[in-house]
């Protein structure tokens, strides 16, 4: 390679672990997240093997409870929440806005170290003896009854929260201040709008989780606390505080995925995204209304009927902007010139799976049905359609799309498409039966279950095997491509975004000359050729 890029600038360990280059930090995050993804995935595998039969045969109840807690905590806080923002976002945001780095590069590096500290603390809790509260830490079980490493695990999540906050802060400030000349708000690619909305949630919701976990740890440590029913404390207050964070956190886990899908749909149908402004504002609407729906997790908890009514109504309202997005993506395909490259397959899978997840979300927002379905496998299936079918699929799509930019190499299109199709089928086989299980009334977090539920559980476990294999495949062909793949040109997909106007991989400070933006994003001419934003 003739010219210097961020990967070849320096090879020492120090140059990686003390780097302030957003691209290298993205790589650090990427490597850490692969690690956490496979730890969480291993727990999921064990769970699915155990559930293949109604009896307890692989593990004891204590171990089973630790497994699903570990799966939840690792996947939510150490994979899904940082996945797209901290890897793809970190890498792409400055490139997309024509900046040389994020606003606070050292804070960015600090955020990775905090993340790793939180991750190691949580891993310590898991390997020292585990934690059996479920990822939701419900009191008074977590504070007064559980006999496991709750404080350590809560500390790990608490610490990782600060990493989220710093990332969100960095993105907000960067998008406000570091846009290239001419890059007005309505010329921003939609990925940035959705990351901006995500960052607002990260900054405003995460501190509430932090203080809640602090109260939990205090209560557990001193044996008495603010949620302790023995002294008149209210366990439901904990749930309110927890879901005030954790419901918006669901939007932290899906908005970036939606953002990626905008980029993919537009690029592979060679058309600008239909209804740009509606999609952009839909992201912010989701972020805003998302703060007002947390009580729909508590319809059967004994909160007042009026509260349930309001939260149910708001939950339907928050679905409207999501519906707007799905319709706009579909309309984008109309009269396009559609290429079925691997990232596009992921994007189409995302639309389908996310729509199923969203529609079943409406089932759960519907008060009377939620009374039956909450805390059953229906809920499990629903949020896996959103988070795995939605977010993880979008993450893989985005990863393939920007892979040539990140590594400067091309991957095997054949294997990438095979993996995408396998993931789609494996996923549906794993999780669709769980809707039926839930509708029939199988509660979640059950280690042993009545034998009449076995058929669907076996199907689900079978699907999980396919899914596990499919998720392992990219490790091989992308790993191979990173070292031996064909060299990628600067703009392999012929896309108009600024990130494609610099070399692959980009040089140290991204651009040799400051780009000046002259037109809206996603512009293609009549021959479906991209018209770069800075031309």
């Amino acid at each position: 390679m003739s010219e210097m890029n961020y990967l070849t600038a320096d090879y020492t360990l120090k140059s990686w672990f003390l780097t302030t280059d957003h691209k290298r930090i993205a790589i650090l995050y990427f490597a850490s997240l692969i690690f956490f993804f496979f730890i969480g995935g291993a727990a999921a595998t064990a769970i699915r093997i155990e559930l293949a039969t109604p009896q307890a045969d692989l593990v004891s109840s204590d171990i089973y409870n630790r497994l699903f807690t570990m799966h939840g905590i690792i996947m939510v806080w150490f994979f899904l929440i940082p996945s797209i923002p901290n890897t793809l976002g970190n890498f792409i945001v400055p490139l997309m806005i024509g900046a040389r780095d994020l606003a606070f590069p050292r804070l960015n590096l600090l955020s990775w170290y905090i993340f790793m500290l939180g991750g190691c603390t949580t891993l310590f809790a898991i390997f020292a003896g585990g934690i059996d509260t479920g990822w939701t830490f419900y009191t008074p079980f977590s504070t007064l009854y559980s006999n496991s490493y709750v404080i350590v695990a809560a500390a790990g999540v608490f610490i990782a929260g600060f990493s989220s906050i710093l990332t969100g802060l960095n993105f907000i400030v960067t998008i406000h201040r570091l846009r290239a000349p001419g890059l007005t708000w309505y010329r921003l690619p939609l990925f940035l709008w959705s990351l901006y909305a995500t960052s607002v949630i990260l900054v405003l919701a995460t501190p509430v989780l932090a203080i809640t976990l602090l109260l939990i740890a205090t209560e557990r440590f001193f044996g008495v606390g603010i949620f302790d029913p023995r002294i008149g404390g209210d366990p439901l207050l904990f749930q309110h505080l927890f879901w005030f964070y954790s419901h918006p956190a669901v939007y932290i886990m899906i908005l970036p995925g939606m953002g990626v899908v905008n980029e993919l749909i537009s690029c592979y149908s060679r058309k600008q995204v239909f209804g740009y402004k509606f999609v952009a504002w839909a992201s912010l609407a989701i972020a805003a209304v998302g703060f007002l729906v947390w009580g729909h997790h508590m319809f059967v908890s004994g909160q007042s009927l009026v509260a349930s009514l309001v939260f149910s109504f708001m939950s339907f309202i928050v679905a409207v902007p999501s519906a707007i997005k799905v319709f706009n993506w579909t309309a984008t395909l109309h009269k396009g010139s559609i290429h079925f490259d691997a990232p596009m397959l992921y994007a189409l899978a995302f639309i389908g799976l996310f729509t199923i997840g969203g529609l079943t979300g409406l089932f759960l927002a519907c008060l009377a049905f939620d009374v039956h379905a909450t805390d059953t496998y229906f809920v499990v299936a629903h949020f896996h359609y959103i988070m795995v079918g939605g977010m993880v699929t979008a993450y893989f799509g985005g990863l393939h799309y920007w892979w040539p930019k990140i590594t400067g190499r091309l991957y095997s299109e054949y294997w990438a498409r095979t993996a995408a199709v396998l993931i789609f089928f494996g996923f549906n086989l794993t999780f669709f039966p769980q809707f039926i299980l839930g509708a029939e009334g199988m509660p979640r977090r059950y280690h042993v279950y009545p034998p009449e539920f076995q058929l669907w559980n076996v199907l689900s476990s079978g699907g999980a095997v396919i899914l596990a294999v499919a998720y392992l495949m990219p490790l091989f062909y992308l790993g191979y491509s990173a070292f031996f793949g064909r060299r990628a040109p600067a703009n392999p997909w012929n896309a108009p975004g600024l990130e494609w106007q610099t070399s692959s991989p980009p040089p140290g400070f991204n651009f040799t000359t400051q780009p000046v933006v002259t037109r809206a994003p996603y512009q293609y001419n009549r021959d479906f050729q991209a018209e770069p934003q800075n031309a």
Partner: protein
Amino acid sequence: MWRQWIPLWQPGLSPHSGDVDLLFAGLLIASALVLGLLFFLLTLFCVRYRAGNQTNRDDHVAKGWHWEVGWTTASFVCFLGLFVWGASVYFQIYQTTSDEHDVFVVAKQWMWKTQHPGGQSEINALHIPVKRPVRLVMASQDVIHSFFVPALRLKHDVVPGRYQDLEIEVDKPGHYHLFCAEYCGTDHSGMIGEIVAMESADFSKWLTQQAPSSPLADEGGMLFRELGCSGCHGNGSKVRAPPLEGVYGKPVPLSDGTSVIADDKYIRDSILLPRSQIVASYEPLMPSFEGKVSEDQLLRLVIYIKSLAGHSP
């Protein structure tokens, strides 16, 4: 009955479960229509506008506010309809009307303990008569549990530190699953039992066959004396404490000028946190029984005081 045609769905067994099933069917149909339309359009566009296919792509539009307004309004109206439907059924489910047959449910790690007013108690089982509403008064000894009967499409959390009311009614005799739906620790999945619905006559027979212990109200009365409650609340005691005869279900004036209805929760709170709500014109003298009585004993005391409702003070 067309409800039984819905695939994989057991017919409802209670007055409300049929409504919930209907709602579910409605949601399924609405979703199927939306998904069908979406997948049809996706497939159509993907096939017709695949790269290299010669087709008319002229005058494609990038935006259209009438489309946006159209599908936004359509979604909103649909959602609003579903919301109203779901909410109205929900209100019916949680309406409690009668309290002719009260059953007390105590949840603890990891079992359900149920007690009939006559004193018959069961573990992980609950016998009830069919076609007659049964009011459950539920309390938890330790962590949060959730009383879930899938066949009735009914569920309610049992949160420590408070009572929860739930009314159930079964139309058909049989054995139905009772699950704990809120994760409660190691043996969560073992915290299951069954609801046994019986014809009224069978149920009465069953009740008489059980009855090894005395009625709950009698046991409550014994506790009332053992714990020393009668020393102050009893007739002719020197300490001035409000008499409890005829109190249950009536409004009680409080020292701060407000009044409350003396229901299960009020009586429970008055035993555990006696000085939070002082009856007007009485001194706050009563000690707290927090930690001195178990949930089982509390229930008996509440039932005893309730049994005094008919007496005149």
